[in-house]
Each structure stands twice: as structure tokens, then as C-alpha cells.
């Protein structure tokens, strides 16, 4: 069976298979790394066949495509090997706003904050081990925020997958930000966290290039209203690139 599927890789690369066969091949490619490599090379080869059919489209197509794009929301990214984008109908665009009115989870907590955060952000439990070199001092301060009597938890699902959880304590003027499972950005980009207040924003830290999960302590909250996360060139930027990937509203 598998051998039979394998002989379909050539026809698959040319879209010369029916829908069932396409599915079979793509399942096979997901399980066979060397086949996936060959398939990718053949796809790359096949795409060159379109070098000889290039024709300028009528100029009206440009306006029409750009107009439709303005009304069309982009899909959330996935990073599944072998997966191809489903052919769905375009979904009307919903302009992103700084503060959306989607339901927000907001809890007032005491010492139980750690458990709650762990439940929302799977990475958190492993944090103490990962961050060993960062020192006990920071760990102690993070624990203090999580256990503060006035600790509040705010959660925001990020665009493109993953979530950002912020545990903040007004009394300690500090917050713990747990970023987990954001969309893969590759080694050329970094997620960056910002403290946003009425006057503007200040960088609160830059994640390592390519990382999509991290935990950080943010001190000096001041009048911070929003903890925002943006996708920036590796190493971070001085100004955030909008739209934000996630904005966690602390002031509501």
C-alpha cells in the first residue's frame, strides 16, 4: 500500500491525482521525511514549468485583487508538515482594534495564582528548571507576584495561536508575563513585549529569535494599561510593529 502511494508522488507534484489520492500522498509525506524531501524538490521543479507561461494580466485585476484583500482576513498560521491550506471561502475582514471586546478571563487570586497560571500556560511549570541560570532572586520576585494578595490574572489568545497570560500585582508594581505557543516566526524574528500606557509604549523585553514561549518578570508597571506582544525583526525594535500579536488589558 505504502509503495503504491509512493509511486503517486510524481503525479501528485503535478496535481495529476484525484482528491482521494492527494490525501493519501499527503498523509504518506507526513510520515516519511525522505519522501517529503523528494516531494518538495519535485514541487519546486514543477513550479519552474510555469516560467514559460507568464503573461501580464489585465490591469483591472490588480485593483480588484487589492480591493478584495482589504476585505479579507488572514488565516491563523499552522506549522504542520505536509499540510496544505484548505480551500475555504474568504472570510470578511474584521479590522483589528487595540482593544477588542472579546470575553476576557479575569480572576482575583491569592496564593493559588501559580496553579491557575500553570493550567493556562503549559510551559510555566517547567520554567524554574529552564531559567536556573537567571538566578534565585528573579525566581523569588516572580513567586512574590504570583502569590501577592492582590494578584490578578489576565489572559489573551494571540492572533495566530498561543496565548499570553499576565499575572499583575498593583501593590508590587510588577507583573509576570507568560507567553506560550505563539506562531513560529523563524530565526529571523523575535517576539517583543511592551508596556503600553496612555503616553506610548516602552519595551519590556525581547524574546530570543525564533522562540515562541517564554516567561518574564516585568517591573515598574506604573500606569501600564496593556501588556502587548509584537512580532519584530530578530533582536527587537524601538517601536512596535503593529498590529499586535496579543494585547492584554490590565486596566479593565
Amino acid at each position: 500500500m505504502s509503495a503504491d502511494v509512493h509511486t503517486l508522488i510524481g503525479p501528485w507534484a503535478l496535481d495529476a491525482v484525484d482528491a482521494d489520492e492527494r490525501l493519501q500522498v499527503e498523509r504518506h509525506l507526513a510520515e516519511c521525511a525522505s519522501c517529503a524531501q523528494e516531494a518538495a524538490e519535485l514541487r519546486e521543479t514543477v513550479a519552474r514549468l510555469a516560467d514559460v507561461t507568464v503573461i501580464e494580466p489585465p490591469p483591472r485585476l490588480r485593483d480588484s485583487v487589492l480591493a478584495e484583500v482589504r476585505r479579507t482576513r488572514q488565516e491563523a498560521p499552522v506549522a504542520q508538515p505536509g499540510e496544505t491550506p484548505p480551500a475555504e471561502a474568504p472570510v470578511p475582514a474584521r479590522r483589528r482594534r487595540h482593544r477588542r471586546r472579546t470575553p476576557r478571563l479575569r480572576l482575583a487570586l491569592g496564593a493559588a495564582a501559580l496553579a491557575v497560571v500553570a493550567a493556562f500556560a503549559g510551559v510555566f511549570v517547567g520554567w524554574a528548571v529552564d531559567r536556573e541560570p537567571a538566578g534565585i532572586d528573579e525566581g523569588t520576585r516572580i513567586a512574590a507576584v504570583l502569590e501577592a494578595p492582590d494578584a490578578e490574572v489576565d489572559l489573551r489568545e494571540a492572533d495566530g495561536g498561543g496565548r499570553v497570560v499576565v499575572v499583575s500585582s498593583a501593590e508590587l508594581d510588577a507583573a509576570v508575563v507568560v507567553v506560550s505557543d505563539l506562531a513560529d516566526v523563524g530565526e529571523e524574528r523575535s517576539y517583543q513585549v511592551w508596556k503600553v500606557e496612555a503616553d506610548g509604549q516602552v519595551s519590556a523585553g525581547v524574546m530570543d529569535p525564533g522562540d515562541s514561549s517564554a516567561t518574564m518578570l516585568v517591573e515598574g508597571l506604573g500606569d501600564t494599561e496593556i501588556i502587548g506582544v509584537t512580532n519584530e525583526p530578530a533582536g527587537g525594535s524601538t517601536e512596535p510593529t503593529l498590529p499586535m500579536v496579543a494585547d492584554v488589558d490590565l486596566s479593565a
Partner: protein
Amino acid sequence: MFEQGAEAHRREDQPRLSVVPGADTATAEALLHRTALGEDEAFAALYDLMSGRVYGLCLRIIRDPAQAEEVAQEVLVEVWRTATRFDEHRGSAAAWVTTIAHRRAVDRVRSAQAAGDRERRAAAESAEPEYDSVAETAAGRLEHRQVRRCLKTLTELQRQAVTLAYYGGHTYRQVATLLETAVPTVKSRIRDGLVKLRDCLEVAR
């Protein structure tokens, strides 16, 4: 892991590490990445780079200019919509866009075929690219020559099978019927032909 805030602040005094806008517009990959971040200008530039490729391929396969234009629009909007899923480790931007275009164009002719209106033309259709078509732009000539030269290295059966499938939008079973050849033979000729093309075009990954 994070750098701590103070360190991030210090960066503000340093030259920006970000890519200067415009400097990375040269490659389709960079444009596609910026498109994935929702940048309209990057998509417009990507359109200018890729629309001829998308429209030309749709026209080759579908043949009716009005329908080709319609499908090209669907393809280009899909590029915008799913740019977030493009992964350059798995292939070039040109191949990614071309794959979407080919699949959509083929889906269109197959549903038309199902309706029966393409049957009579199928066999008569030329599977070969029209070498003297308007596509012959200065920039494209080198690639043209290379693709044509490489197609000529294939055996007659390999070349017919590959071009009937790709430019004709036929399935390998239909190709077998058109060429009056056994289905397993067509499958293996397609694969052999593509491998030979790959080596000739020196597709590197």
C-alpha cells in the same frame, strides 16, 4: 527566554537591527513574510512580482481569459489569506504561489470537465507551451530557455506525460488514456521525467 527590560532599553541607543524597509523587497520570500504580517504594501509588491505567473498559468490551463482572470483573483487572494502558513524551509515563495495557482486552475477545469464541456477539446489540445507567446518578456527569456532545453532532455513519453498533466490539467489516468499507454507506465514516466527535469534545472533545496 527574555532579555530583561533594562537591556532591551539599552538597545534603543543602538542602531536598529531591523531590516530597512525596501532593502528586503527584492525577494518574494521577504514580501510573503511581510504579507503574513498584514502589510498591504508588501502584498501589492508581491502581486506585481507574481500576478503574471499566476494569470499566465491559469490562462494556459483554463484557456478562457474571463475564467482565468476569475481564478487568478481567487489564487492571489488565497496567497494573501494563507501567507501566514508559508514556510520557506519547505520551498520557495514562487513554488508556493505557483502550486496554489496550478491547483486552483486544475480544480476549475476538472469541475468543468465533470460538466462535460471540455471533453471534446481535451484530446485536441496542445500540451506544449506556445513558445512564441506574449510571455516572452526580456526577464523571462533565460528561464524560458532553460525550461525548454530541459524539457528536451526528456524522452518523448516522459515529456508528453509531464506536459499533458501540467499544462493540460489532466490526471495521470487521463494522460494514460490520451497517450494510449498503461497507467503504471504513465505514473513511472511522470516521476522519471520530473527527476530528470529536477536534475537538469538544478533545483536545489
